[in-house]
């Protein structure tokens, strides 16, 4: 009781001195010892001689209670610090930081915490102080409880096509309107482009809008698609069919290379890109708005203790935070759940496919740059949606892959082994013979299309690219829509930060753009395959030649991928042939070609919500599907000392594909981000 009274008394004094509300002061003193220490250390009696600093009177004490507490305190603190005669920083370069910061806190009116998360007010009011501080190019660095915080105007998570397009667009808008915004992109891969893998027949529509002169700027886009072949594969034959694709005007590229090039363009514009840093946590403020992310602590050993190289993560705060983590982004999924972004627009769940790809260097005589081959049928059975692709790039390289929809029923299906089978098909073998594999990789992709797009705006930012899900399934292209979504979000963010509008304009501009039109027209192709391969093909043909999406109904997706798995006892195990070491390979050999690695002495980034479920449910009831669908052999059942099977997680192998997060029947596996810099190192994928 007595202690409370003391605190109350101190709080009253403090409130008077600082012009704070008494209840704020009480809370501060009662719960933050650092605050009382700081208050005790400030020399209150010195006048502020530093020019350009407003006095307390000019600020108007009575109106203080409208301003966020932190601002008031920060200002007072800086004021006292700069004015103290014993100020050690007086003649140092840090004085440069204090002056503008003081201006920042003194002049504008910072946003009041608003109850309505989509309020236009919060962004509008921030206009004044934002332009002042950013014009001075000051990045605020503060330190709090062991973690440093760095502030930017816009923070983008993921240096992929969407993330980099958003960053570039922001800087372009800044140049147009003669202003500046600080933009930071964090990327978990060791290099920009290191985690990027895609087919890829690239439609340059969005790039033409973003960087119209890409042709003159040595963009790695050289091989124009010259032919579109479409095969129906049986075990021995490849039956040519009329191609549903029209890739005239598109290019066969390595998306990893293109993203590297985009990264270079972004850095030229002054965007700060930090590869090797994984965003492990979303930061929220007191009003539950997203204010940024925290990077993962580095140097924690397998048992959870801190190694001698321990470095705490850093808080990277942004006035707008854009999530561009790609398909099934770990933080994006959390955000979608938290703010119920799918329910917001009555969107369905997202559906996925797993793509496994290799880049081969083949015989010159078999190489035909520009040739595009897509195939359906073998080795997949009629009930499993998926297909294969083979694209001829330049330098005698071909990209070859198999995409398997993750709503397959048979838990004994092994997409990696199906891909190895594919390579033995006569039509494919003919092309690959005499060649060598350069790289291997795998990644999941969205197949939900229009029906699964969540509301992409949340308080504090937005979700762009495949993390929201804009892949056009019948075209099997998602790069151009991801880039466009990034550009639209950048325009909305610029409006919000600079002109006082609102991030919701991102949703509006999406719906008015060609992205929406494309995805709407393409919406019924994939769901039709719920009824089987033939009905699916029939509907696809109808849609492609006649309907083009102009029907009044929208077909719905079936069960969620993880629910679609049948019980093992209802399904037949599949026997896969042994790899021959020339065309087909075992997983370790392929994995080596992905250049994947993680520091082994770190806690496993694959978390089991309930550690008993693998042995209790996955193994007996579903035959341990994770040991089959993981393209990196992360999940293995080994015998423990008592001879009982136990799940062993080889987290070091992980390709960051997210298949386990999607397909685990009880959704027990949670993919979280490992230490930055780990994972695959794709360069031509």
């Amino acid at each position, binding site marked *: 009781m007595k202690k409370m009274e003391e605190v109350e008394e101190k709080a009253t004094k403090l409130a008077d001195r600082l012009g704070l509300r008494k209840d704020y002061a009480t809370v501060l003193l009662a719960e933050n010892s650092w605050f009382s220490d700081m208050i005790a250390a400030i020399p209150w009696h010195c006048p502020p001689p530093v020019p350009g600093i407003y006095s307390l009177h000019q600020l108007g004490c009575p109106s203080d209670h409208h301003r966020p507490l932190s601002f008031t305190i920060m200002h007072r603190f800086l004021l006292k610090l700069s004015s103290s005669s014993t100020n050690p920083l007086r003649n140092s370069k840090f004085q440069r930081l204090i002056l503008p910061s003081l201006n920042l806190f003194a002049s504008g009116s910072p946003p009041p915490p608003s109850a309505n998360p989509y309020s236009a007010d919060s962004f509008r009011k921030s206009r004044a102080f934002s332009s002042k501080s950013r014009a001075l190019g000051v990045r605020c660095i503060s330190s709090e409880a062991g973690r440093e915080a*760095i502030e930017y105007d816009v923070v983008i998570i993921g240096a992929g096509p969407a993330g980099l397009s958003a960053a570039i667009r922001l800087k372009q808008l800044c140049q147009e309107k003669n202003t500046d915004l600080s933009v930071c992109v964090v990327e978990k891969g060791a290099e920009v482009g290191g985690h990027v893998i895609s087919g890829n027949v690239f439609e340059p529509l969005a790039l033409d809008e973003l960087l119209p002169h890409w042709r003159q700027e040595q963009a790695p886009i050289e091989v124009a698609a010259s032919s579109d072949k479409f095969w129906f594969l049986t075990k021995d034959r490849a039956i040519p069919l009329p191609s549903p694709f029209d890739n005239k005007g598109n290019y066969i590229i390595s998306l990893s290379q293109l993203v590297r090039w985009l990264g270079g363009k972004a850095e030229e514009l002054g965007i*700060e890109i930090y590869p090797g840093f994984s965003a492990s946590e979303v930061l929220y403020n007191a009003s539950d708005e997203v204010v940024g992310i925290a990077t993962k602590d580095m*140097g924690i050993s397998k048992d959870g203790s801190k190694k001698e*190289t321990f470095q705490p993560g850093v808080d990277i705060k942004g006035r707008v935070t854009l999530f561009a983590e790609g398909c099934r982004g770990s933080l994006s999924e959390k955000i979608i759940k938290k703010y119920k972004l799918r329910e917001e627009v009555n969107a369905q769940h997202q559906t996925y496919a797993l793509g496994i790809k290799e880049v081969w260097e083949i015989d010159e005589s078999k190489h035909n740059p520009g040739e595009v081959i897509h195939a359906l049928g073998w080795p997949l059975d009629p009930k499993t949606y998926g297909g294969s692709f083979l694209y001829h790039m330049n330098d005698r390289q071909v990209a070859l892959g198999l995409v398997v929809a993750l709503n397959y029923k048979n838990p004994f299906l092994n997409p990696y082994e199906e891909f190895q089978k594919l390579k033995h098909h006569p039509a494919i073998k003919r092309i690959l013979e005499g060649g060598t594999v350069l790289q291997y990789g795998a990644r999941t992709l969205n197949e939900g299309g229009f029906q699964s797009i969540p509301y992409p705006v949340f308080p504090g930012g937005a979700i762009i690219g495949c993390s929201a899900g804009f892949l056009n399934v019948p075209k099997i292209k998602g790069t151009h829509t991801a880039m466009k979504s990034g550009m639209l979000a950048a325009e909305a963010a610029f409006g919000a930060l600079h002109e006082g509008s609102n991030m919701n304009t991102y949703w509006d501009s999406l719906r008015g753009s060609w992205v929406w039109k494309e995805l709407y027209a393409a919406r019924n192709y994939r769901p039709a395959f719920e009824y089987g391969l033939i009905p699916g093909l029939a509907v696809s043909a109808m849609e492609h030649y006649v309907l083009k999406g102009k029907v009044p109904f929208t077909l719905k997706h079936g069960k969620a991928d993880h629910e679609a798995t049948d019980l093992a006892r209802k399904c037949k195990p599949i026997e896969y042939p042994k790899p021959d070491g020339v065309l087909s390979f075992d997983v370790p050999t392929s994995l080596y*070609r992905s*250049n994947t690695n993680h520091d082994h002495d770190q806690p496993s980034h694959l978390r089991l919500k309930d550690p008993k479920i693998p042995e209790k449910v996955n193994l007996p009831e579903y035959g341990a599907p994770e040991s089959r669908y993981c393209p990196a052999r992360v999940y293995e059942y080994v015998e423990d000392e008592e001879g009982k099977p136990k799940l062993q997680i080889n987290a070091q192998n992980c390709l960051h594909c997210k298949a386990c997060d999607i397909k685990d029947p009880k959704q027990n596996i949670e993919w979280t981000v490992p230490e930055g810099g780990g994972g695959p*190192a794709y360069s031509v994928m």
Partner: protein
Amino acid sequence: MKILVAVKRVVDYAVKIRVKPDKTGVDTQNVKMSMNPFCEIALEEALRIKEAGFAKEVVAVSIGPPQCVDTLRTGLAMGADRGIHVEANSSFLPLTIAKILKSLADVENPGLIFLGKQAIDDDCNQTGQMVAALLGWPQATFASKVVVLDKDKQFATVDREVDGGLETLSVDLPAVITTDLRLNQPRYATLPNIMKAKSKPIKKMTLEDLKVDIKSDIEIVEVTEPPKRKSGVIVSSVDELIDKLKNEAHVV
């Protein structure tokens, strides 16, 4: 005292390499490159000595194409004070590198030169030793235990990992030390440090500035992949073993 640390930009250790089709070397196009792990350990040790108060400045040096600046930036982010980039368009053999480092040492006058014991791309294990010989300085190679400096900074005590075990040497300064794997765990370059490193100076120098003769007496004729390891054979009896050794392997 100044410490000079030579760092090399090499193909990342986890990357699968392949030989170029024309057999002139390893294909390094579009391949992930990073700082040689032994050079990271060398830099870490130099930083620890500086933090212990025995040195004032740590200077990182790299010799190679413009992309070496990225490697130097990583070094600066770890804590080096400034960097020197010696521009070179082709890759050099250890003797040439040693000559360049000697010229630099004449200019910079460091009290210690730290190098990694070898680079993981050529596994030469020669540069450190050659630098010491050219300069006439003492050398302590394969350093495996914390290097302790005498208070007056006149000599250093180094534990070396040699074939027979551990050897403790005392070397007068200035000296050359090359670092082995178990010496330390290099620190992570944190984000704030990476940001600060952007403003640290990296001086560009050319070979003309250093007056180094780069003519090499060694020419790489051909690079090929090692022959694929054949699978083993289990023999059923000693007679069969002898027969195979005599008639197939021709070693008996």
